[in-house]
C-alpha cells in the first residue's frame, strides 16, 4: 500500500503572493486581491473576515480553483500539495480534494432547486446511483435525522433546515476542503448559532479543512482557531483568533474589534425618565395577509425621550408593529394613541400633518430609502419644505457635510445613505423616531459609527425612539427598555439591566448566551 500523497505533504493549501486584478484595468489601480500569502494545514479551520468589497469572496473562490469572470491572476499562484490549482483540470482537482471542493454559498434561498425534493438534490450530487444510506447518514450528521426530510421540497423547509441540507450536500462526497460563504447571514441569530455548532461537530467527525468567510467577526471567531482580517484586497492581520481579538495589531483590526456591539457595554447614557406618555397601545392586534396574526394583543407605552428596543426573530411581528404605529399597516383591534390622545389607528394618508410629522420612521435598506433619481437636497426638502440652512444643520447632526446636498444616492456609501435618511426623518422634528434594523445592512465599523450618531441625536434632541433589531448586543448597548417579541407576543419586557441580568424567557436566555459567547472569545 502506498501512502496517500495528500497526507504526506505538510501544507494542504498555499496562496503564494497572489494578486488578482480586474481584466483590462491599468496596473496602478488597486487590485481585487493584493499579495496574498496564506497557508492552510490539513483539517485546519481558517476564518476570513472583512467588510464588503474587501476581496474575501474572491479569495474563497480561488481556494476552489476558480476565478470569477472578468478577473485575472496578475501574479503568484495557489497550490495544493504541490499542484497548481488554477491550471489543474476538474479531474485533477477532484482527485486532489477527494470529491469536489464543497462550497456553500451565501443565498440559501437560491441554492436549492424549487422543484426537486431533498433526495432529488442528492441525485444530482452523487451522480448515478443514490446511495440511500450515505444520504441518510449525511443528513443525520447535519441534524436532519430520519427519513421524513428525504421527500420534502425546499419550500417545506425552514431557512435553517435549508442551510443544513446544503451542508449535507456538501459533505456527502467527503470533501477534504469545505468553503463557507457567509453561512449564517441569512438566518436568525439563534438558528445561525446552531448551524455553526453543527459545522464544528461535522469538522471534528470528518476532519476536513474549512475556510469560512463572513463580515461578522462573531461568526468567524466562533468556529475558527485562526483568522485572517481582510481590508481592501489585502490580509492586514493573520493570527490566532483569541490573540487577534484580544490584542489586535493593525489599525483596521482595532477598529473592527472595537466596533463589535457588546451587550455589556453602553454606547448611550441613560436619561432621566419623564412621565409624559407619547404612545400608548392597549391590546393591539395586527393582521398581515388574510389571517396571520403579526401582533397579538400587545400593551405598550413609550414616554417622552425614552428609547425602547424591540428584539425578535424574523416573523415575530416587530416590523409590523412599527409600520402600524406610523399608519402604513392597518390595526385589526385594540387601541393606539399618541400623547395628545390622537387615535393612531388611522392610515397615514388620513392623519393631519402635525401628527404625521411627530412620528417618523427610518427603514432597513439604505439602497431603498432614497429616491435614486433625486439629489439629497431634493429628497430632504420635497415633503418637509426645509430650507437649505435647515437641511445643512440636519446633515451636520448626522455627521454629513454640506457637500452631500448635491449628491445622488449612487454617489454615496451605504452608511452615508442611511445617515441622510435619518437626517430627513429629523427634519419634521418628530417626537418619536422608529428605526427598523437601520444598521443591519451596514458593515460593523459603519454600524458602530451610525449608532454613536443616533446616541448623540437622542441626547441632544431628547427624541423618543423605538429601535428594532435582531441583535441583542445592539439593543442592550443602546436602549433604556427591552421588549422581546416571539410570534407576535411579548415574551419579555423590562429595563435593560433586568432583561440582560435575569432573563425569564428561554429565547431571551439563548440570545444573551450567544452574544456573550461571541464577545468573550
Amino acid at each position, binding site marked *: 500500500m502506498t501512502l496517500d500523497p495528500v497526507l504526506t505533504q505538510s501544507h494542504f493549501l498555499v496562496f503564494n503572493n497572489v494578486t488578482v486584478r480586474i481584466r483590462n484595468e491599468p496596473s496602478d489601480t488597486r487590485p481585487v486581491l493584493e499579495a496574498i500569502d496564506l497557508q492552510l494545514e490539513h483539517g485546519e479551520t481558517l476564518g476570513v473576515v472583512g467588510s464588503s468589497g474587501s476581496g474575501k469572496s474572491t479569495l474563497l473562490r480561488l481556494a476552489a480553483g476558480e476565478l470569477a469572470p472578468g478577473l485575472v491572476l496578475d501574479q503568484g499562484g495557489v497550490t495544493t500539495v504541490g499542484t497548481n490549482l488554477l491550471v489543474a483540470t476538474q479531474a485533477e482537482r477532484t482527485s486532489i480534494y477527494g470529491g469536489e471542493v464543497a462550497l456553500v454559498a451565501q443565498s440559501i434561498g437560491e441554492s436549492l432547486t424549487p422543484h426537486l425534493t431533498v433526495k432529488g438534490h442528492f441525485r444530482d450530487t452523487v451522480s448515478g446511483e443514490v446511495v440511500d444510506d450515505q444520504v441518510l447518514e449525511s443528513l443525520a450528521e447535519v441534524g436532519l435525522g430520519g427519513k421524513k426530510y428525504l421527500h420534502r421540497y425546499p419550500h417545506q423547509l425552514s431557512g435553517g433546515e435549508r442551510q443544513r441540507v446544503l451542508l449535507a450536500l456538501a459533505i456527502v462526497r467527503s470533501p477534504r476542503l469545505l468553503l463557507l460563504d457567509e453561512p449564517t447571514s441569512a438566518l436568525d441569530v439563534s438558528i445561525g448559532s446552531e448551524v455553526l455548532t453543527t459545522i464544528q461537530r461535522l469538522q471534528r467527525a470528518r476532519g476536513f479543512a474549512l475556510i469560512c468567510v463572513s463580515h461578522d467577526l462573531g461568526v468567524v471567531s466562533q468556529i475558527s482557531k485562526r483568522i485572517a482580517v481582510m481590508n481592501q484586497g489585502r490580509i492586514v492581520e493573520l493570527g490566532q483568533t483569541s490573540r487577534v481579538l484580544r490584542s489586535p495589531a493593525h489599525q483596521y483590526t482595532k477598529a473592527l474589534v472595537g466596533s463589535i456591539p457588546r451587550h455589556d457595554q453602553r454606547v448611550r447614557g441613560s436619561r432621566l425618565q419623564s412621565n409624559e406618555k407619547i404612545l400608548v397601545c392597549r391590546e393591539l392586534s395586527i393582521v398581515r395577509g388574510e389571517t396571520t396574526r403579526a401582533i397579538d394583543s400587545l400593551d405598550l407605552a413609550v414616554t417622552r425621550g425614552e428609547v425602547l428596543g424591540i428584539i425578535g426573530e424574523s416573523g415575530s411581528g416587530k416590523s409590523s408593529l412599527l409600520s402600524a404605529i*406610523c399608519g402604513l399597516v392597518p390595526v385589526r383591534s385594540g387601541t393606539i394613541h399618541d400623547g395628545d390622545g390622537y387615535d393612531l389607528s388611522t392610515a397615514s394618508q388620513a392623519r393631519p400633518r402635525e401628527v*404625521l410629522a411627530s412620528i*417618523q420612521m427610518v427603514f432597513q435598506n439604505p439602497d431603498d430609502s432614497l429616491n435614486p433619481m433625486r439629489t439629497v437636497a431634493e429628497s430632504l426638502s*420635497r415633503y418637509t419644505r426645509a430650507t437649505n440652512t435647515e437641511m445643512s444643520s440636519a446633515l451636520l447632526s448626522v455627521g454629513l457635510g454640506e457637500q452631500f446636498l448635491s449628491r445622488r444616492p449612487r454617489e454615496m456609501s451605504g452608511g452615508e445613505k442611511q445617515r441622510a435618511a435619518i437626517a430627513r426623518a429629523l427634519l419634521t422634528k418628530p417626537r418619536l423616531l422608529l428605526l427598523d434594523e437601520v444598521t443591519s445592512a451596514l458593515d460593523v465599523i459603519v454600524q458602530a459609527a451610525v449608532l454613536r450618531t443616533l446616541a448623540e441625536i437622542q441626547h441632544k434632541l431628547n427624541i423618543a425612539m423605538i429601535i428594532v433589531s435582531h441583535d441583542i448586543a445592539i439593543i442592550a448597548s443602546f436602549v433604556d427598555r427591552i421588549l422581546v417579541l416571539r410570534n407576535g407576543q411579548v415574551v419579555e419586557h423590562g429595563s435593560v439591566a433586568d432583561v440582560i441580568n435575569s432573563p425569564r424567557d428561554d429565547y431571551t436566555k439563548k440570545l444573551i448566551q450567544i452574544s456573550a459567547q461571541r464577545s468573550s472569545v
Partner: protein
Amino acid sequence: MKALQSLNFLKDRVLILVVLGFHSLVALLAPYLQLPATDSQDSAALLQGPSRSHWLGTDFLGRDVFSRLLHGGRPSLVIAFSATAIACAIGVFIGSLAALAGGWIDDALSRVVDLMLALPTLILLLLIASFFGQDPLVLSVALGLMYAAPIARVARSATQTLLARDFVRVARLQGGSRISILFGEVLPNVWRLMFTEVAMQFTWILLAFSSLSFLGLGASPPTPEWGLMVAESRSYMTLNPLLVLAPIVMLASLVLAIQALVDHE
C-alpha cells in the same frame, strides 16, 4: 448550438449602433440628398436591373428603387413614433392608476387591459382603417390605443414595485399627497423600468404599420413605404428580386437593431 453561435453578431454593440445610426441618418437626410424624385416615372425604363443611373434598378412604373428605399422608412417611423407616444401616455396612465388606486378600480382596469390583449390586433386595425380611412392621424391613434395594453401591464407592475419601496413610504409619512408621490417618486422611476417594454412596442408598431401598408390599408400610393413597396412589387419579384428584398432588408435590419439594443440594456 452552431446556429445560436452564428447569431453572435447580434450582440456586437458597435454593429448595432452603426445600423441604427445609418437608419437615423437615412430617415433624416433622405429629402436633402441628390436623388431622383420618388414619384417620377420613366416609362422607357420599367423593371430594370441595377445600373449607374438607377443603383437598385427601377420598379414597374419606372421609379428609382434606391430613392424610394431611402425615403421608405419615413412614413413608418413618423407613425411609429407618434403611436408609441400615444401608447405610452395611455398605458402608463392606466397602469399606474390601477396600481395606485387598487381595489375594484384595479380589477376593472386590469380586465380591460386583458380584453385588449386578447383582441387580434391586425384584424381590428384593418377594420378601423377601412371605416375611418388611411389618415396618418387616425392610424397613429388606433395603433397607440391598441399597443397601450402591454405597456399598461408593465406600468402597473412597475408602479406596484415602486409603491413598496421605502422612499415612497417615507414620502407618505412626510405628508406627500398621492399626486405628488405619483409624479415625484413613482413615475420618474417607472420610466427607467419601462424603457425595454416601450422600445419593444415601438418595433411591433413599426411592423404593424408596414403590414397594414402591405395589405393596402396603411400608406397609400404613391408614397414610398417599405410594406407598400413589397406589396406593389411582389408580382415582379422574378424580374428584379431587389424590388422585394431591399425593403425587407431595411425593415428587418431596423427592427433587429432596436431589439438587439434593448437586449443590451
